C-alpha cells in the first residue's frame, strides 16, 4: 500500500549509507489562517518574515539560557549522528541530530555571533534564506523531540528544545503546522484534541459502563463532571475513541472501582495531551494546562491522576506546577499530579488488588518505554521509577514478560516514530521509516523469545504502532495498553468469572484501602 520503501528489519541495527535529501520532500501540511489566528499567530507567512524570525530568535535566546548554550556548545564530536531513529530509518544526513541542530545554528552564528557577522564563510554561518526556512519546516518536522540523541551528547545538547524553538519561530512568522495548531484550537473550544463534545463523551462513557457490566457482571461507573469527588482523571481523548486506548481506560475504571475511591472525568479538561509543548509555545502550554487546574478547582477534587499519555506526563510532572501552580488546594499527602501507573502500583504493593495473571496467558509481553516518560519525567519515589513501575504492573498481571535489547529501552528507548506532533497522515512516510529501529528490536524478541504483544503507556505510541506495525509484518492489535493488561487480570469483588468448568463468583479479597496508599 505504501508508495515508499519500507526499511528492512531483518538485519541488526547498522549505520545507514548516507542518502542526501532522501526526505527533503516530506513536510507536513501548513496550518490554514483560521488555525493560526485561533492561537494568536499570523494567518500566513508575513511580508517581513526574515527580520521577524530573527527578532523572535533573539527573544528566545534571551529567555532561554539552555537554547543559547545549545547553540554555542556543539563540538561536532559525532556521538549523536547514529542515535536518531529518523536518521536510522532514512539515511538522510539532515536527520542526524547535529545536522538538524546546525540548520538553526548556522542562522544563529550569522546573526548573533561576531565571527558569523564578519566572516560567515569561515564559521559555517548562513542567512535565513527561503531555502533555509524550507529546510527548517521540513526537518524540524522530522524530529519527534524524543531526546534520545541528548542522552548520548557529551554536552547534553537537547535537540528537542531546538526543534521546539524553531517551530515557535515559524509559528510567529505565519508558517505553522496544520496538525498541531488545528488540534490546539479544538482544545480551547471543546476541551480535547478530538473535538469530542460533552454529549458524545457522556454517551461513550455510558456505553463503556454497559460493556464492563456485560463482561464482569459488576457495575463499574465512569463518572463525568461529578463534583466533590476525590480524584480528577485527566487522560488523552484517544482513550475515549481509539483501540487499544479504550481498553486501558476500562482498566483505570476497574482499578478506581476496586480501590473504592470516588473519581470523575471532566468534559472541560477532557484532554491530558498538551500539543503546545510540541510547538514550543509556553503561552499555549499554559492555556491548555490552565484548563486542568480550573476543572480540578471547579469540581473540588483532592487529587489529579493522569492516564496513559507520554508527553502529557512530561508536562504534568515537569512543567505544570511552574505553568499554573501552586496546586495547594489539592491533598498534599498524594503526589501532585499522580500517574495512573503509580496509583495502580501502590495498590498492587499494598496487596489491595486481586490479579489473575492467567487471564493474560495467551500473550507474551514486552514493554515499549515512551520517550517523554522515559527521558522527560519520573514515577514513584526512586530514580528509574518510570522504567520499573510500568514493568512491575505488567509482571503483576502477566506470567510472560521479556524486555527488548538493553540499548533500545529505558533511557535509551527508541521513539515510536510518531511523537512530537508527527502523528499525522501527511507524515506517514517518515513515521513508518522512523519506527524501524523499534520494529527491529521487537522482531528480535518476537523471533527469539516468543513475544506476541508490546505494551505502552502513551496514546501517540499506541496509535502510531497500530498504524505502522502492519508495514513490518506485525498486526495492528499487537500493541496493547498497560492498563488493558490490568483490566484483563483484575478480579473485581463479585465478578462473574468464566471458568472452563463452571461459572463461579469469586470472593476476591475485599479491600478497605480506599486507595489511601500514598507514594511517599
Amino acid at each position, binding site marked *: *500500500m505504501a508508495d515508499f520503501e519500507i526499511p528492512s528489519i531483518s538485519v541488526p541495527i547498522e549505520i545507514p549509507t548516507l542518502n542526501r535529501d532522501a526526505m527533503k520532500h516530506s513536510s507536513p*501540511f501548513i496550518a490554514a489562517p483560521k488555525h493560526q489566528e485561533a492561537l494568536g499567530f499570523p494567518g500566513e507567512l508575513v511580508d517581513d518574515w526574515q527580520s521577524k524570525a530573527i527578532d523572535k530568535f533573539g527573544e528566545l535566546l534571551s529567555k532561554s539560557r539552555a537554547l543559547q548554550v545549545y547553540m554555542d556548545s556543539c563540538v561536532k564530536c559525532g556521538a549523536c549522528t547514529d542515535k536518531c531513529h529518523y536518521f536510522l530509518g532514512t539515511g538522510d544526513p539532515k536527520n542526524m541530530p547535529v545536522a538538524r541542530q546546525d540548520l538553526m545554528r548556522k542562522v544563529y552564528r550569522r546573526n548573533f555571533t561576531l565571527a558569523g557577522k564578519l566572516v560567515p564563510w569561515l564559521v559555517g554561518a548562513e542567512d535565513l534564506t527561503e531555502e533555509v526556512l524550507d529546510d527548517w519546516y521540513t526537518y524540524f518536522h522530522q524530529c519527534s523531540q524524543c531526546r534520545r540523541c541528548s542522552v548520548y551528547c557529551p554536552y547534553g545538547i537537547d535537540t528537542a528544545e531546538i526543534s521546539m524553538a524553531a517551530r515557535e519561530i515559524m509559528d510567529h512568522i505565519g508558517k505553522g503546522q*496544520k*496538525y498541531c495548531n*488545528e*488540534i490546539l484550537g*479544538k482544545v480551547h473550544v471543546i476541551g*480535547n*484534541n*478530538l*473535538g*469530542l*463534545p460533552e*454529549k*458524545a463523551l457522556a*454517551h*461513550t462513557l455510558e*456505553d*463503556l459502563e454497559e*460493556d464492563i457490566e456485560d463482561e464482569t457482571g459488576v457495575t463499574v461507573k465512569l463518572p463525568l463532571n461529578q463534583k466533590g469527588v476525590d480524584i480528577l482523571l485527566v487522560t*488523552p*481523548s*484517544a482513550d*475515549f*475513541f*481509539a*483501540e487499544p*486506548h*479504550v481498553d486501558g481506560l476500562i482498566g483505570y475504571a476497574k482499578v478506581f472501582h476496586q480501590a473504592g475511591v470516588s473519581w470523575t472525568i471532566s468534559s472541560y479538561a477532557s484532554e491530558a*495531551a498538551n500539543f503546545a509543548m510540541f510547538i514550543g509555545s509556553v503561552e499555549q502550554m499554559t492555556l491548555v494546562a490552565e484548563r486542568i487546574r480550573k476543572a480540578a478547582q471547579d469540581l473540588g477534587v483532592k487529587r489529579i491522576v493522569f492516564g496513559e*499519555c507520554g508527553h502529557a506526563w512530561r508536562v504534568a510532572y515537569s512543567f505544570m506546577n511552574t505553568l499554573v501552580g501552586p496546586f495547594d488546594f489539592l491533598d498534599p499527602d498524594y503526589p501532585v499530579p499522580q500517574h495512573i501507573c503509580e496509583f495502580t502500583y501502590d495498590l498492587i504493593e499494598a496487596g489491595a488488588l486481586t490479579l489473575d495473571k492467567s487471564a493474560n496467558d495467551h500473550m507474551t509481553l514486552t514493554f515499549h518505554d515512551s520517550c517523554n516518560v522515559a527521558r522527560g519525567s519520573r514515577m514513584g519515589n526512586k530514580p528509574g521509577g518510570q522504567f520499573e513501575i510500568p514493568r512491575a504492573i505488567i509482571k503483576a498481571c502477566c506470567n510472560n514478560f521479556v524486555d527488548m535489547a538493553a540499548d533500545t529501552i529505558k533511557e535509551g528507548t527508541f521513539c515510536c516514530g510518531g511523537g512530537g506532533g508527527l*502523528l499525522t*497522515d*501527511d507524515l506517514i512516510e517518515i513515521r513508518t521509516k522512523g519506527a524501524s529501529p523499534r520494529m527491529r528490536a521487537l522482531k528480535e524478541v518476537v523471533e527469539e523469545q516468543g513475544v506476541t504483544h508490546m505494551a505502552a503507556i502513551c*496514546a*501517540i505510541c*499506541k*496509535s502510531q504502532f497500530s*498504524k505502522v506495525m502492519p508495514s513490518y509484518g506485525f498486526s*495492528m492489535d499487537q500493541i496493547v495498553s498497560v492498563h488493558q493488561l490490568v483490566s484483563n487480570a483484575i478480579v473485581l469483588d463479585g465478578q462473574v468469572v468464566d471458568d472452563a468448568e463452571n461459572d463461579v463468583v469469586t470472593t476476591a479479597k475485599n479491600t478497605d484501602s480506599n486507595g489511601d496508599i500514598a507514594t511517599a
Partner: protein
Amino acid sequence: MAYEINGTTVEADEEGYITDISLWNPELAVLIAEGENIEMDDDSWEVVNFLRNYYEEYQIAPAVRVLTKAIKKSLGPEKGNSKYLYELFPYGPAKQACKIAGLPKPTGCV
C-alpha cells in the same frame, strides 16, 4: 482540492475531506470512495449511514468501539468487529469512512 459532481464543485481540504459538510450527497460519497479505491456495497453504506446519523446527534464520529457494536447489531457478530471494518475501509474505519461520509477527520492521537 475539490470534487466535481453534476456540474458543481465541492471544496475539500488537502486530504480530501469536504469542507462544507452540508454539501454531501450519496453520489459524492461514491466519488470520494472511488478516489480511495473503495467500491461502496451495502455493508459500506451501513457504516457510512451509521456515521452520519451518529454525527448528526453527537457532532463527532463515533468511537471505534461504538461503531463495531452498532455494526454487530445491524449486520451480525461476524461483521461487527474491527477486522471486518478494516476490510471495508483499509485505511481505518474512522478516518476513511468519515471522509466518504462527508464528515470531518477525527484529530488527535488517533
